[in-house]
Every structure is written in C-alpha cells, then in structure tokens.
C-alpha cells in the first residue's frame, strides 16, 4: 500500500518538478521570479481542453496548447519583463503576476469557473505488479517529464546556446562583452520555460482528468516551494524539490489526512528555509551577486 502511494506521489512529483524547473530557469538565468508560469501551466491544460471540445484530434489540441503558451511567453517577455529592465528586480515579478490574473480571467470568461472534466485519452489500461497498479498514462507522463529534464540538462551543459545561458546566469555583463545576443536569447529562454510549464499542465490534465482556470495556482506555488527546497537556479535542485514535495504530499494524505497537505508541504519549505536557506543542493549566493 505504501508502494502504491509512492507511485502516485511520483506522478505528482513529476509535475511539480517540471513547474519548478520552469521557475528555476527564469530565476537562475534572469533573476526573475516569473509569476506567469502558473498561468502558462493552466493554459497547457485549458487550451488543450478547449481544442478537444471543439473536436480537434489530440495531437492538434496539445500542439495548440503548447503553441499558445509559447506565444503568451513571448508577450510576457515583451510587455512584462523587457520594459522593466533597469528598474527594481521586483517590478517584473508584479507585472508577470498581472499576466497570471489576466490569463485566468480570460479562461474564466470563456469556460466558466467550474472544474471541467478532461476526456480520457488512453484506454484505462493498467499495469499490475503484484498489488501495485500503474496507469499507462501515468507511466508515459513520468517518462516524458524525466526525459524533458534530462534533455534540458544535457542542452545546458553541452551546447553552444547552453554555455551562453550559463554565462548569462553567472554575469550578464560578461555575456554582453562576449557578444551573447540577449535580444534573441532572452525570448528563447521564456519560450523554453513556458513549454516546460504548459507540458506540466497538459500532463496534469491527462492524468487527473480535470482542468479549471485556477488549476495553475496550487501547483504553481508548490512548484516555487519545490524550487526553493531544492535550491534556486539549480535544475537538479528543482528535480529533487519536486520529488520531495510530491512525496510528502501524497504520504501526508495517506497517513494524516488531506487537510494536512499544505501544512506538510509548506512546513517542509519553512524547515528548509530555516536549516538550509540556499536549498538542499543550492549554492550560497556568489560574491558577484551580493
């Protein structure tokens, strides 16, 4: 029974992990806490839902959802991030929060505020190992999430663009003097982060078969918590944080009860902030940033 809970927890972990990586990409490289990410998560689920309801085949609906998230991310970069350069670092945080509210309310106008049920795409197939039940959708989703993160980590450590991104993360000034073209790199980062968040939203919709205009909030804030628990700016930190938060949540439900979910998840965050403020595998702030 415990193993079953852990398997279920891993599914949730995979989603938190993707959201946490989306956040960590923006904060680690651009020092920007992008609060439109929960909105992009929701767009992933809601636009796919809207597409399916219109009768589109699922690859088109899913592609449309990811495309919509990418376009919105470009708008966030253009209107919430770029004009705020040179002001306080908190300013784009607030303007991106504005985008979250805007996106939620646009979806609210179109689809109403209720939970909608997302159609089951895969026949209800389960793998059974002894008493353990693993859904096919669950398995595919977890595999996809892990692949995405592994690919991203490879991309950052091995490619030319990855080296440029890591240079920007360390020092924008150095990147500028080396001729890194921020005008194209920053929008690409926003799109990358949006694709992670909206994929997470899609996987959430497929696995839990429900969507709503506000589905991004709970998951988004858990994603931020996961990022902080693991260590801001570190991809593997976000993975570890997502894993822990997801497991803590599911184990809390099975042992103490669903009412204690937020207490234990955010309690873990508080504990980490007290004991190890830089996160489990984060590094203390570098001298340059201080």
């Amino acid at each position, binding site marked *: 029974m415990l193993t079953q809970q852990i398997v279920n927890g891993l599914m949730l972990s995979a989603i938190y992990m993707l959201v946490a990586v989306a956040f960590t990409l923006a904060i680690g490289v651009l020092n920007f806490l992008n609060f439109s990410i929960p909105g992009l998560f929701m767009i992933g689920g809601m636009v796919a839902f809207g597409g399916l309801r219109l009768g589109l085949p699922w690859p088109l609906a899913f592609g449309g959802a990811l495309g919509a998230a990418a376009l919105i991310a470009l708008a966030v970069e253009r209107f919430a991030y770029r004009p705020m350069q040179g002001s306080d670092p908190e300013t784009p945080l607030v303007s991106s929060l504005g985008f979250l509210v805007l996106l939620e309310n646009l979806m609210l106008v179109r689809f109403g505020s209720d939970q909608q049920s997302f159609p089951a795409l895969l026949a209800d197939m389960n793998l059974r190992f002894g008493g353990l039940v693993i859904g096919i959708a669950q398995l595919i989703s977890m595999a996809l999430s892990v692949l995405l993160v592994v690919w991203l980590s490879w991309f950052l450590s091995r490619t030319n663009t990855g080296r440029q991104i*890591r*240079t920007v993360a360390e020092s924008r*000034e150095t990147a500028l003097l*080396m*001729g890194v073209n921020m*005008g194209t790199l920053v929008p690409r980062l926003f799109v990358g982060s949006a694709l992670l968040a909206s994929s997470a939203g899609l996987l959430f919709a497929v696995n839990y078969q429900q969507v709503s205009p506000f589905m991004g909030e709970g998951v988004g804030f858990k994603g931020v918590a996961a990022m902080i628990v693991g260590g801001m700016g570190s991809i593997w930190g976000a993975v570890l944080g997502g894993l822990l938060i997801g497991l803590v949540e599911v184990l809390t439900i099975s042992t103490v009860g669903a009412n204690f979910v937020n207490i234990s998840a955010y309690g873990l965050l508080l504990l980490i902030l007290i004991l190890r403020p830089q996160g489990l595998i984060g590094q203390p702030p570098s001298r340059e940033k201080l």
Partner: protein
Amino acid sequence: MTFLSVCDLCVRYGRVEALSGVSLSLREGEIVTVLGANGAGKSTLLRAVLGATPSQSGSMIFNGQDVTKLAAHERIARGIVLVPEGRRIAISLTIEENLLLGAHLRRDMVQIKKEIEGIYERFPNLGSRRNLLASCLSGGEQQMLAIGRAMLARPKVMMLDEPSLGLSPLFVTKVFDLIKELNRDGLSVLLVEQNAGKALAVAHSATVLELGRVMMSGDPQTLAADPRLQEAYLGEAST
C-alpha cells in the same frame, strides 16, 4: 591604410559625459595604446568600440565598413574583440567551456577544436586543467585564458583593457610578450594600460585621454619624452 577609425565619439552615462568627441585611428598590424588616469574614459572607449556601451554620436569605420550601428555580437563577428577589464572569466564554466564561449559565434567546429589545442600548447597550464572550473586558475592564468578566449573569436583587432592589472611581475612580462607575439603574427591591437612605460614600449602609436577628451596623441617615443605625460603617468615607475 586605416583599419579602424573612430570619429568624434560621444558617450554619456545619464548626465555624465564619459567621452566627448574622441577620435582615434589604427592601421592594420599596429599596436595602439590608450593611456590616461582613472576615469579618463579608457574602458568606456573600448566598450563603445565593441558596441557594448551605446554612443550618443560619432561614427566608426572598421575594415572599410561602417559599423556604427552594429550591435556587439555583430562587431565581434567582424573581428572586433575585447579582453575585458578584470578578465571576466566565467568561473562557473570549465576552462574549455570558456574557450568555446569565445568561439560561440562561429560554426566551424573542427577548426575551433584545432585552435583550442593550439591554445593548450601555448599555455600548458590551461591544457592540463581543461575540464576543471576556471575558478581554479590564478589571476595570471585567467588572463591567459581571457586572451585565449578572445583568440577563439578570430579577432582582427584585439582590444585589451588593462591586461596587466593585478598580475605578478612574471605574468606582466608574459602578457606583454604575448601581445608582441600576436602582433608579430599580424594581429592589430588596441591596448588600454595603466602601466604606461610598458605600453609605450610596445606600441606603434599612443593616445592619451583626459576627462573624456584626447589630450595628446602620436608617436610613443615622443609621448614618453613629453614632460606632461612623464609627470602624470610615468613618474618614478617608468623603468
């Protein structure tokens, strides 16, 4: 023939005028040094030539092309490359990744690998630690890495901003030897230095900035003998 010509360049930071009408020219294969006190605008000049600091007015011709309106990455692709003040090595990257970063605008991977091997032969200290983080290098070694990184960008003009600053005498000599050697192989150099004596000794031409203006310019021997310069920058240290 003039290779790089900067004409009447003005740069303002807010209300402060950092450069007010600076002109400078460099012929192919030359070393031109820019001297001046702290705050004279030397670094600003190099940054403006790179395109990293916007200029309010003035123009720049490089290799027969007007580059005034080009962004830094476009100028670097044309061969205007900077070795920044304080070296600015990316310490969270390995030594090899720093070199690759220098080549990030190029696509000829085979040639890049060959040139990186060339750098390792020239600086065995870098080669033996190629996969370690650049933070493990000493200041002098970081300067060699910074110059190697700039070489990987295929410079036609290499600009160096105070390359000897903070280095041990041994590395100061190494840096100047390296500049002379690269120049002998045909590289044009624009050198900003606080070590005026050493800079004038290697330069073909010199310019002195004072408060954002050209105070004097010309032949380094003449300038070295000028009493005003002697007093201001050479002093006792001119050995």
